[in-house]
């Protein structure tokens, strides 16, 4: 083949290649703005990335990944942390196993990539370069949306300047800890899709502008960025829940995409996401496995046995990785590490006793149904053990309701004000460093705006012939899952090592979705979007400096610092709540509401920045040398 022939063939292929590119683009980001959201989020998460362990539980994942990258499912060596018996590790047949195998497996290729990179270049410089390239891509995208070339050229110079600064300040990155970095990178990339899919969902339900603004509220106004690079399930859960909501929406609207031409495919995809997520954290997948059909089946157009069977098959297939991993570890298909543990509580840490409880249920099933039913015994046993997780989930939800009635104080401390509550202290029982849900994301108070809407709501005279529109279906899913998550964890909160009520993490995207859907919020944000963005920027830049001074002057330790942020958050939440209750968005009221939304978003962002730079700097292990230098410079108490 001559060179000309080769070029000719390449030319022929170009449309195919560009088609593939377009398709990948559309599938992942939806449109150009979606890509911009992704890049901006990745750049932000990169800024806050610290290459260290925030929480003991992550040791389990890192050691699991280390063993898996050496071809071993059982954990062989405690390369990270104090030993193999770290929170969340479980023991079967004398061997220790990790958990969240879904993300562990997903991180495997990244270990390989990072090891390869470390072989040819300095890992720190490589990751700094990747971050700089992401920033450059963001500049290019922003340049596309603005007139004139000054954004492009100014941005390119700034990127080069920042790259130079980072290289000048760089210290080597330990190339022996690639398993941790790979896990962090996986979580970070998954987390970056929460705002992307959130944008795509809301730009379909409403407008692209509202989609974009909602993505800003979610990324800056909730602790998403704090958890993004932490190898824990939380960021993954958030993305999965938003993706399910998106698929649910698409499955209830006529298909218009280039790739997926049938709405049934989106429906199947929603279920498949639940199945795949079970591979990461089974108890929460179980909850989704209940809330999704609860909303989807009554509202779907087509529930013929054939359709349901098809979805059932896809769901079963999506569960395969989960089932195979469980079979390999515990010998039981439905018993993942940590699902059914000692005291029958989903997710308690007594994983070592899990072998006992699960095993007895299986044998109990077969022995109890002796006699005539003997041939059916294995089937009944399977059914019974299949029901067990559901019963456990039911038990957890019921105890969540009981907590509401019996320990209203605990509920108050977990959701509204942490303060000096005993449950909200750290492990040593000294520092109040576990914020409530509202203190972590004060914007969520805007959800009370639902009250005036409900008051004005008139139910249709006949419910029977009324089919819910796609956006109402997503609302129903968001509300059901919101309530489900609250009840699932209610009995265990407040709890140490939560920082920002991390168990309740899915409530952040769900909550933001729900209040953005309220007409008053939606209209105010869209009408005064510039005002909103300026308020967020002003709160972060000016309010942030005031907060730094306040912390430096009045605070003696991390607990006081956290509680100062908590009070600032609640202080921004109270007027926002009052405005939301008024339900007004016309004229001045809309402007006031927008400013209050922006302020609450900004207050959370300031907490987020100071937490990652100062309070939980984790020994100033920031990935970016310039952030490390900033952390070293800043000493507030």
């Amino acid at each position, binding site marked *: 083949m001559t060179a000309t022939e080769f070029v000719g063939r390449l030319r022929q292929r170009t449309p195919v290649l560009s088609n593939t590119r377009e398709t990948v683009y559309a599938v992942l980001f939806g449109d150009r703005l979606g890509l911009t959201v992704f890049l901006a989020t990745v750049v932000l998460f990169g800024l806050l990335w610290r290459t260290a362990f925030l929480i003991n539980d992550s040791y389990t994942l890192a050691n699991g990944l280390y063993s898996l990258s050496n071809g071993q499912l059982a954990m062989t060596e405690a390369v990270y942390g104090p030993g193999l018996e770290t929170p969340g590790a479980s023991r079967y047949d004398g061997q220790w196993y990790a958990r969240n195998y879904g993300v562990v497996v997903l991180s495997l290729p990244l270990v390989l990539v990072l090891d390869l990179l470390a072989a040819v270049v300095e890992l720190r410089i490589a990751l700094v370069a990747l971050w700089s390239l992401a920033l450059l891509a963001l500049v290019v995208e922003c340049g596309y949306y603005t007139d004139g070339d000054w954004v492009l050229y100014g941005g390119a110079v700034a990127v080069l300047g920042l790259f130079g600064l980072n290289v000048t300040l760089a210290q080597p990155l330990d190339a022996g800890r690639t398993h941790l970095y790979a896990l962090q990178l996986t979580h970070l990339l998954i987390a970056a899709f929460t705002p992307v899919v959130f944008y795509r969902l809301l730009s379909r339900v409403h407008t692209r502008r509202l989609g974009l603004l909602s993505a800003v509220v979610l990324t800056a106004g909730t602790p998403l960025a704090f958890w993004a690079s932490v190898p824990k399930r939380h960021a993954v859960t958030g993305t999965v829940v938003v993706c399910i909501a998106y698929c649910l929406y698409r499955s209830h609207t006529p298909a218009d995409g280039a790739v997926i031409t049938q709405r049934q495919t989106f429906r199947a995809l929603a279920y498949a996401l639940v199945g795949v997520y079970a591979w990461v954290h089974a108890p929460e997948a179980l909850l989704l496995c209940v809330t999704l059909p609860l909303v989807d089946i009554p509202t779907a157009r087509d529930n013929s046995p054939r359709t349901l069977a098809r979805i059932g098959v896809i769901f079963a297939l999506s569960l395969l990785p989960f089932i195979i991993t469980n079979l390999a570890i515990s010998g039981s298909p439905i018993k993942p590490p940590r699902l059914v543990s000692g005291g029958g509580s989903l997710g308690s840490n007594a994983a070592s006793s899990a072998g006992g409880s699960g095993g007895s249920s299986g044998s109990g099933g077969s022995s109890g149904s002796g006699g005539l039913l003997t041939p059916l015994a294995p089937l009944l046993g399977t059914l019974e053990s299949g029901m067990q997780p559901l019963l456990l989930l039911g038990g957890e939800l019921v105890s969540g309701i009981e907590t509401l009635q019996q320990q209203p104080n605990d509920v108050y401390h977990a959701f509204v004000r942490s303060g000096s509550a005993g449950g909200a202290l750290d492990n040593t029982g000294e520092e109040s460093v576990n914020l409530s849900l509202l203190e972590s994301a004060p914007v969520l108070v805007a959800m009370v705006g639902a009250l005036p809407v409900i008051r004005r709501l008139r139910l249709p005279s006949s419910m029977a012939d009324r089919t819910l529109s796609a956006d109402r279906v997503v609302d129903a899913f968001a509300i059901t899952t919101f309530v489900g998550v609250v009840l699932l964890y209610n009995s265990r909160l407040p709890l140490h090592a939560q920082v920002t009520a991390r168990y309740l993490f899915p409530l952040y995207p769900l909550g933001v979705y729900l209040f953005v859907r309220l007409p008053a919020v939606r209209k105010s944000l869209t009408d005064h979007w510039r005002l909103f963005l300026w308020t967020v920027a002003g709160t972060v830049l000016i309010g942030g400096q005031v907060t730094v001074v306040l912390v430096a002057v009045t605070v003696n330790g991390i607990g006081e610092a956290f509680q100062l942020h*908590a009070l600032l958050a609640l202080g921004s939440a109270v007027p926002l709540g009052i405005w939301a209750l008024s339900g007004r968005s016309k004229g001045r009221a809309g402007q006031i509401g927008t400013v209050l939304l922006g302020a609450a978003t900004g207050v959370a962002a300031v907490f987020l920045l100071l937490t990652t730079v100062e309070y939980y700097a984790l020994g100033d292990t920031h990935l970016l040398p310039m952030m490390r230098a900033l952390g070293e410079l800043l000493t507030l108490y």
Partner: protein
Amino acid sequence: MTSVVAIILGVTLLSGPLFPGVTLATEPEPVALETGNVTVSAVELSEDVTLEKGSYGAASYYLDTPPVRVQFANRTGRPTLIYELTIEELGYTRTTNHFLDDSTGDTYTLTLASDTFTDGEIEREQYNGTVTVSKRDGSGHGVVAMRNVTISVVE
């Protein structure tokens, strides 16, 4: 844009073992501490040490020790100054080391890292403690100043 990408990738390649002559990321050099000499001419010790109930609604008591100002008659090399507080009745000692170098001026403010005590640990309205400032330099360890202080509990 392409040139910016090229520069970034080029610099990254330079950092690797392919170019052994170039070192881009360097470990901070280990510095020899406790060298040289320091003579303190004056120490300003405030006695206003408090155990204050957490502000902003935080749990526990926060130990608030005022900074100590020292004035040097002479300072060379990299000596270390040590600020220490002992509260015997609570079985508590806290030290904070301050590493001085050439960028240090004629005066220096020593701070002590804060600590917390649970509500259960604090039973009295005041405690007796000892504040010590000592130095470590080329000529060894020496106490610069020592004072008994009363630590008052502020609700």
